[in-house]
């Protein structure tokens, strides 16, 4: 390699750090151009069902059948009291959710890279979406919006290490902590870690974890997942690290809800 190439590479690295490495108007506009160029080709996948793996579709089918059977049994087993209870619960849930304005969106693409975890949805600034809006579904928290164009947005998933959520354990003593994805975990079932949890707290596997509402992005009380493993922080020993299995199956996401207010 000659000296000229080394100089060019050096200039590229410096240029990237100066102009693109930090979020600014120039990199934002350039990104938007490439997003608008690339998105139609991502959407082309809608017309080619073979891009969905047969295994995935078979599993979805199996899960839906099982869910259908379960729901049928539940409906059959519900008496009048059960029906009334369900109705009251739904009304209560509706009232609780009423202050939150939401919007449904379809997942149109995944992350094109192996090193970050995000999805692309078919709603954008034209639908009133902005950065840092919470995204969830019926199972729980999915992530937050990190970039928006007119017709699409990118959602950083809870399983990405850069997505940090203020959380607490649902059961008393409701210890707080911060949930983030595990660094590019090499696993087919993604995991998260809840850090800064009181070292004296007694936590059992299976305990549910919910969002705490601190930070202003994620509303309080959204399920995040359940505890799978607890250990003292190896580096400091000052707090506990809790491994969490997310409540959401990120592989099967098709529709999501964006909390707009």
């Amino acid at each position, binding site marked *: 390699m000659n000296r000229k190439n080394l100089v060019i590479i050096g200039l590229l690295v410096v240029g990237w750090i100066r102009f693109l490495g930090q979020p600014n108007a120039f990199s934002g506009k350039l*990104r938007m151009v490439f997003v608008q160029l690339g998105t139609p080709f991502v959407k082309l996948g809608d017309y080619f069902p073979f*891009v969905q793996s047969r*295994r995935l579709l078979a599993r979805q089918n199996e899960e839906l059948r099982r869910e259908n059977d379960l729901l049928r049994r539940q409906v059959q087993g519900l008496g009048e009291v059960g029906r009334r209870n369900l109705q009251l619960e739904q009304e209560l849930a509706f009232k609780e959710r009423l202050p939150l304005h939401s919007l449904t969106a379809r997942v149109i693409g995944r992350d094109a890279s*192996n090193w970050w975890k995000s999805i692309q949805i078919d709603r954008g600034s034209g639908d009133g979406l902005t950065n840092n809006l919470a995204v969830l579904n019926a199972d729980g928290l999915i992530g937050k919006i990190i970039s928006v164009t007119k017709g699409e947005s990118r959602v950083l998933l809870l399983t*990405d290490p850069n997505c940090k959520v203020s959380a607490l354990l649902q059961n008393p003593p409701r210890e707080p902590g911060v949930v983030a994805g595990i660094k590019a975990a090499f696993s087919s079932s993604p995991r998260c870690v809840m850090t800064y949890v009181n070292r004296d707290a007694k936590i059992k596997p299976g305990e549910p974890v919910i969002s705490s509402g601190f930070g202003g992005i994620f509303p309080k009380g959204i399920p995040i997942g359940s505890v799978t493993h607890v250990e003292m922080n190896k580096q400091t020993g000052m707090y506990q690290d809790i491994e969490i299995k997310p409540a959401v199956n990120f592989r099967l996401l098709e529709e999501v809800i964006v909390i707009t207010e």
Partner: protein
Amino acid sequence: MSTLTAIVGILIAAGLQARLPTLWLFGSLRIEFLPALVVYTALSMPRGSAIAIAFAAGFTQDALSAAPFGVSALAYGISSILMTSLREVLDRDLPWVQMGAGALTSTASAVIAFFCIGISFGVVFKMILVASISGTVTVLLFFVLDYARMAWGDA
């Protein structure tokens, strides 16, 4: 291969990367097509066009990802500069050269990503697998595109 064909190829490859399901058997790996395309253009097209296409490929991948914008562009750009300057030494028709170039281009992208996300044993293992798959994809892409060029002439 004309520049226009290469640009369409980049957009299709990026669209496929963002839409195809991951290989769950290999820890949810995503097949990368863009490194293969970058290697193919670097070893087949004029230097200026090949480097410009490499940057476009990186920017497109970053636009369809949560990555800091320009990370992949930097990796693919540097890989393309190095490959085009070593073109006289590299025999593009040798499958091992194609595979090595594809794996190294993919690794360059991963190494730059590590500066942003940190490094761990799992990450390194994943990088080796991604690089191996990218190398294999590169050999297949060379075979298909060379055959297409032979059959239909240079588009």
